């Protein structure tokens, strides 16, 4: 690990930890009844958004889904904006109109996330088409899950992206579950990249808990798209530590999800893995780790307290935001 790599690794570690702490904070607040609506947490999956975002710039167009806190925060978007949004406050990223499932921060390139499964995949293709027509060299990113590839629009989108040579990167976070259903009882194969192959789109299946592997794959895909090479498909295999929604484990409602599985996957924690590699090569230490965690905890605490005090949207927001002004 050279100095440059060490610096990058440190940024990755910081970004992943920031997301982890923020999401754990949301889990606790939801458990304690401070958050009114559902939160879909991606703890354990942080390496994917962080690795992908390393090659993106603010003019790129990134779209998420229901489990998108990491996609937003990995773009250096404000934690306070996320917390305020989840609490339905006027200072939230979506002005308190979206909550956890409708996130937006276009200043950072985050065009939006929605909970309709695969709902933004075609939108990302269109944002990429716009970039192609505008000749900006920007790319679009569609984050989707292994459940989303069961939606017809994904296949239409892959085909359209390929035939129109659109600069879009499909990032499948394959965490093996759609809600409570394991992929083995939903699909005849557990490799969603087969759909990219079927549409003649270059695909890679990677370890989604290895942030360096994700970053390298994403870099290749982004460069390819910026240079006019069209779409790419990255399938990053991972696992979510929490259940489908909120703070529980879901080992009781899940099919093929046991406490043993969760424990085994926690042993493959993307943050712990990176941290161990950095320590082993002399670029990180327990003391630095404690410092970083303390700093992030302070940031979270401040952001949370501020968000709790922030005002709710005015009642006029109900009708004022239906149409453009």
């Amino acid at each position: 690990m050279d100095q440059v790599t060490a610096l990058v690794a440190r940024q990755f570690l910081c970004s992943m930890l920031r997301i982890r702490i923020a999401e754990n904070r949301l889990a606790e607040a939801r458990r304690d009844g401070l958050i009114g609506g559902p939160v879909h947490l991606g703890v354990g999956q942080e390496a994917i958004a962080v690795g992908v975002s390393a090659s993106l710039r603010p003019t790129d167009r990134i779209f998420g889904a229901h489990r998108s806190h990491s996609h937003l925060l990995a773009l250096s978007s404000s934690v306070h904006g996320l917390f305020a949004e989840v609490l339905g406050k006027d200072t939230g990223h979506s002005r308190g109109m979206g909550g956890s499932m409708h996130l937006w921060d276009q200043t950072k390139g985050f065009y939006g996330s929605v909970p309709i499964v695969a709902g933004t995949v075609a939108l990302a293709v269109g944002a990429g088409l716009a970039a192609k027509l505008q000749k900006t060299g920007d790319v679009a990113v569609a984050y989707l899950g292994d459940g989303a590839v069961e939606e017809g629009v994904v296949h239409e989108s892959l085909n359209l992206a390929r035939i129109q040579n659109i600069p879009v990167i499909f990032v499948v976070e394959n965490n093996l579950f759609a809600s409570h259903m394991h992929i083995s009882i939903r699909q005849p194969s557990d490799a969603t990249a087969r759909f990219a192959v079927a549409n003649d789109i270059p695909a890679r299946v990677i370890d989604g808990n290895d942030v360096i592997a994700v970053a390298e794959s994403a870099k290749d895909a982004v460069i390819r798209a910026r240079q006019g090479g069209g779409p790419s498909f990255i399938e990053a295999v991972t696992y979510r530590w929490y259940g489908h929604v909120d703070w529980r484990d879901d080992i009781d409602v899940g099919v093929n999800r046991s406490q043993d599985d969760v424990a085994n996957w926690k042993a493959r924690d993307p943050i712990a893995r990176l941290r161990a590699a950095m320590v082993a090569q002399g670029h990180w230490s327990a003391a630095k780790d404690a410092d970083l965690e303390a700093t992030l905890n302070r940031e979270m605490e401040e952001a949370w307290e501020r968000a709790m005090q922030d005002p709710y949207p005015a009642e006029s927001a109900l009708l004022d935001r239906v149409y453009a002004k």
Partner: protein
Amino acid sequence: MKTYNYGTAILAAFEHLLDKYPEVFVIGQGLWSPWYVGNSMTDLDKKYGVHRIIDTPVSESACTGAAVGASLSGMRPIVVHPRIDFMLYAMDAVVNQAAKWSHMVGGQAHPAVTIRGIINRGGEQGAQHSQALHSWFAHIPGLRVVMPSTVADARDLLIASVLCNDPVMYIDDRWLYSQTDDLPDVEEIDLRTVGPRCLAAGTDLSIVASGYSTLLAMKARDQLAAQGVSAEVVDLRVLNPFDPTPVVESVRKTGRMLAVDGSWRTCGMSAEIIASVVEHLAPGELRAAPRRITLPDAPAPSSRVLEKIYYPDVDQVAFAAQASMAR
């Protein structure tokens, strides 16, 4: 002044938009083929290039979603669905995404996308080639629904739709394409200022309609005039957001109303028209019970015998108007 028919008026709108606005592009099925969209898009691909006039795979859902995504990225796309029936595959992009986007993100982003759905019915095409679903779309907050009935509106409201920052469903009807009119040069208008309009004044009865039904109403008005009945025709033009004021004013004046709508009866636009008027009038202001003519609550038939009784015609409209007068 230049003479257009309804189809070439739409073509003129496309040309105006594509000439003047580089952010406008068109995507949909059949755009490189002469027979999908009548004479309303002839040779646009040759004039503006296939990169801006994009004929697509058979993928209504992805193409509509892509247009929504492009509209969030500084473009003003027009999606063309040569038959509304096929557009039902695209409902997530229209209803869940485009219509709700502004509200969901706190009014900070707006999908400036126009979805052109063409009603193309009759000719024994049957249940899945004949639908008129404007009432359905008008139910969705955030989605503007535009139904031009005149040659001038066909051109000017398409331009206004595309220049509007909200998602707009622009619905034209192939049965209107043969109308002709002389139009002045284009003058761009703000869609937010467009609403129902009195198309022809009268004193005895208000006929309220949209799209092809307005043409029926105008023809019935001529027939009624010959019978000594003075009918006023109000053309809705924009069904959502619906401003009932001009309709209420008309009925307040005439005291009688007939809603004519080319969609189904139950929960259809005709019900919204009548309800909006009734709730704004005092009980004594109506001289007869409101009436309506709609499609029967059945899918479109194929057989010509059934088709003949399925679609409202001019005689039916005139007859219902006379019945209102008799009360």
